[in-house]
């Protein structure tokens, strides 16, 4: 693609024997890392391996406990608090890092506003904001406030923000976790454009195919140790996975069990209208895994939130196990055995400033009462169970959830939802930010749940996930069902066609079946 990978060129940014501890807890052990101009260098590793910590050190957000950083061949101490941006090192945080009350244009230019005569040049900033978003094919109003955007749009704004800065080194921590195929493709185009201009890109992702496509070199971390740095051409997804997890990864997806066509309908939705949803009808059968695909903003989340009573539905009927179930409040849906796991783990899913235990049991606190008092033993047991079942890795039980690695937060959220022992489970981007090893575990858990007779809706922007798991797939477009796929029809190209509106969903009868 370009010559960077092959030519021995001087590294622009490099780390030598970096170690990092939080308090007394070591997180990185003597890691070496470097990145050259025009190169995409991927970092992969299990959840909690230390990827985010490493790149925080590379951008000055955290200071290493020992070791040195060189920039342009000079040993430097990077300034804290994002001030390294002035040196050309730009970071997209794994955690969404936008102020909720600012507008899109404000956010893109936060900290380096354009000025005319000392005053903000609002017109120019809007214009440039629109331009950079245009390049990314995002269509959000530059005057919209961040808190009105969907998670994916927020991510795109973050990307726009990073791209619009004059980066020499652009660091992206799981930028694609919430993006669907289309958005990811656009992002990659932009990354290639930047690398062609000599920008160095550090890229973290759990999606190995993305890495194979984009990166020239890959660094693998495991438990804070550097395992290897290798050129992509020498790798296959399987070998990467093996390096990451330390064992062979057989099938990512468990075999699908045959769906039982006569199984009773457990969830039925008819003519649902709600904010962001224009007329949706579908059925979910017992033991079925139903995938929801679609582009960003197509309304999948809106459907789920309307069903469980998080938003007010203006029309339509929902029934659970044949009984009318027009929930006005999430508590009622949980009570009826229907649980929803949000995709916005920071904003909607977890309390970042408290520990694991209160988060895990928040949804189901009533189960941990002894009389009227909380039974902390029972809570502790629940945590133990969840930690085992979902392999949640926290260095110590007292850490606040905000300090957990992204993937472990996601696992905790899964645990939180499963605590309610639901019969119908709606998972919104269930493996967002989860490493392949754990992903495999989660897929097996989902399949096992379905086999047990639970019914599951998987909303996902990861095409492979929808395809690999679902018995049926519904494709949404602009708040409506655009298509319905079953069995052998479930292939990427077909889904894309519906999602993009190239193909219409045939007869209503089929869609509503």
């Amino acid at each position, binding site marked *: 693609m370009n010559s960077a990978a092959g030519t021995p060129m001087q590294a622009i940014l490099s780390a030598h024997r970096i170690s990092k501890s939080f308090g007394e807890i070591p997180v990185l052990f003597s890691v070496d890392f470097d990145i050259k101009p025009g190169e995409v260098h991927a970092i992969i590793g299990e959840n909690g391996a230390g990827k985010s910590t490493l790149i925080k050190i590379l951008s000055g957000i955290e200071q290493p406990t020992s070791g040195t950083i060189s920039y342009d061949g000079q040993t430097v101490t990077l300034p804290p608090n994002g001030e390294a941006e002035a040196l050309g090192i730009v970071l997209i945080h794994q955690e969404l890092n936008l102020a909720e009350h600012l507008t899109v244009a404000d956010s893109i230019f936060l900290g380096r506003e354009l000025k005319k005569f000392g005053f903000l040049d609002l017109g120019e900033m809007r214009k440039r904001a629109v331009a950079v978003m245009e390049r990314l094919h995002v269509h959000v109003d530059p005057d919209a406030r961040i808190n009105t955007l969907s998670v994916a749009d927020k991510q795109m704004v973050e990307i726009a923000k990073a791209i619009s800065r004059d980066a020499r080194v652009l660091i992206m921590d799981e930028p694609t976790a919430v993006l669907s195929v289309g958005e990811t493709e656009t992002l990659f185009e932009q990354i290639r454009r930047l690398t062609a201009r000599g920008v160095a890109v550090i890229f973290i992702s759990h999606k190995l195919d993305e890495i194979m496509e984009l990166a020239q070199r890959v660094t693998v971390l495991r438990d804070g140790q550097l395992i290897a740095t290798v050129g992509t051409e020498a790798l296959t997804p399987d070998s990467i996975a093996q390096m990451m997890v330390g064992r062979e990864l057989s099938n990512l997806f468990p075999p699908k069990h045959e769906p039982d066509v006569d199984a009773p309908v457990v969830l039925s939705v008819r003519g649902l209208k709600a904010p962001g949803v224009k007329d949706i009808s579908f059925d979910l059968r017992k033991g079925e895994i139903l995938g929801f695909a679609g582009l960003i903003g197509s309304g999948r989340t809106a459907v789920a939130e309307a069903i469980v009573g*998080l938003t007010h539905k203006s029309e339509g009927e929902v029934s659970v196990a044949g009984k009318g179930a027009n929930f006005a409040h999430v508590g009622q849906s*949980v009570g009826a055995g229907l649980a929803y796991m949000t995709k916005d783990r920071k904003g*909607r*899913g977890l*309390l970042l400033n408290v520990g694991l235990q209160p988060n895990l049991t*928040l949804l189901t606190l009533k189960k941990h009462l002894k009389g009227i*008092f*909380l039974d902390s033993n029972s809570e502790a047991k629940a945590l133990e169970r969840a930690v085992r079942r979902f392999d949640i890795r926290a260095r110590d039980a007292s850490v606040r959830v905000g300090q957990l690695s992204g993937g472990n937060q996601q696992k905790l959220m899964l645990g939180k939802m499963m605590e309610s022992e639901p019969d119908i489970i709606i998972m919104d981007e269930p493996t967002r930010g989860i490493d392949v090893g754990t992903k495999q575990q989660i897929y097996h858990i989902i399949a096992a749940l379905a086999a047990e007779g639970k019914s599951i809706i998987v909303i996902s922007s990861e095409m492979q996930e929808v395809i690999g798991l679902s018995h049926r797939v519904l494709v949404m477009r602009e708040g409506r069902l655009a298509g319905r796929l079953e069995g052998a029809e479930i292939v990427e190209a077909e889904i894309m066609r519906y999602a993009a509106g190239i193909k219409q969903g045939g007869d209503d009868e089929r869609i509503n079946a």
Partner: protein
Amino acid sequence: MSVSTHEAAKPVKGLRIDFKTLGPLLALVLLVILGYSLNPAFLNEGNVTNILTRSAFIGIIAVGATFVITAGGIDLSVGSMAAFIAGVMIIVMNWAVGSMGASIWTVLIGVGCSLILGVGAGFINGFLTTKAKIEAFIVTLGTMGIYRSLVTYFADGGTLSLASGARDIYRPVYYDSFLRIPIPVWVFIFVAIIGWVLMNRTAFGRYCMAIGSNEHVARYSAIKVDRVRTATFVLQGLCVSLATIIYVPRLGSASSATGVLWELEAIAAVIIGGTMLKGGFGRIGGTVIGALILTAIGNILNLTEIISNYLNGAVQGVIIVAAVYLQRGSLRTRRKKAE
């Protein structure tokens, strides 16, 4: 200290709780030392009893305020509410004395009326905040003015005084002791313990923290946010009612001057105690100590003559800021060492 460092990093449950109240406690201890060195009479049994009894009013109200603030609200109306409840209690008890003579029932009627008013007033604050979706600051600023005006109106600008028959029966509630500890202090202890249990050992307390820390997460976790929020205001009303019940027998009167600025004192006690004004984090133990600190400052100022009276407010201000600095400071050093 080096031992404590370790424990702070990997805290054992019981110990951690101790550490958290350590900050305010340290400030209180320093204040006691200061008081004693300025005037040894500070530690006389009589004076200590006085401090404890006085702190009961603000303390009880502040326990309620801890819940409101933890759940992300604020209640500015508590002082006026106390005056209003006291006023109505007195009117009702005087009426009862007039129509059926003074007896223990008179007092019980007054107490019942106080509880109803407290819960009702709290509910109104909660309702306006959650259902009419008006900021708690504005709602309670409004009700603050309303209650204070009403008591002034009922008292015709003057003072409402409890009929002496009822007064004699009611008086012991403030002035008597049980096991050498005055009744108001018992009530305070009781409220503090209930409050602590509610906050730390029940689902309700957990919900308050969750709502104050992130309302969305709370809602997505099936918590009835509006209901819990309203409940915190009702609880606050109940605490105000209890404080009023032990306040009325003290002087047997209520006027427009009753409970002025109690809201500021209550909020200050809560925050001195380590609860955050932004919500999400409440410490009943700290609040109790905060109330004691505030009362002790007032008492110390009365026990010494070294500074001009005109500067009382300044000394009070300096001590409050210093006390909070001390505790936050001591926390910081501990944290630094822990790293």
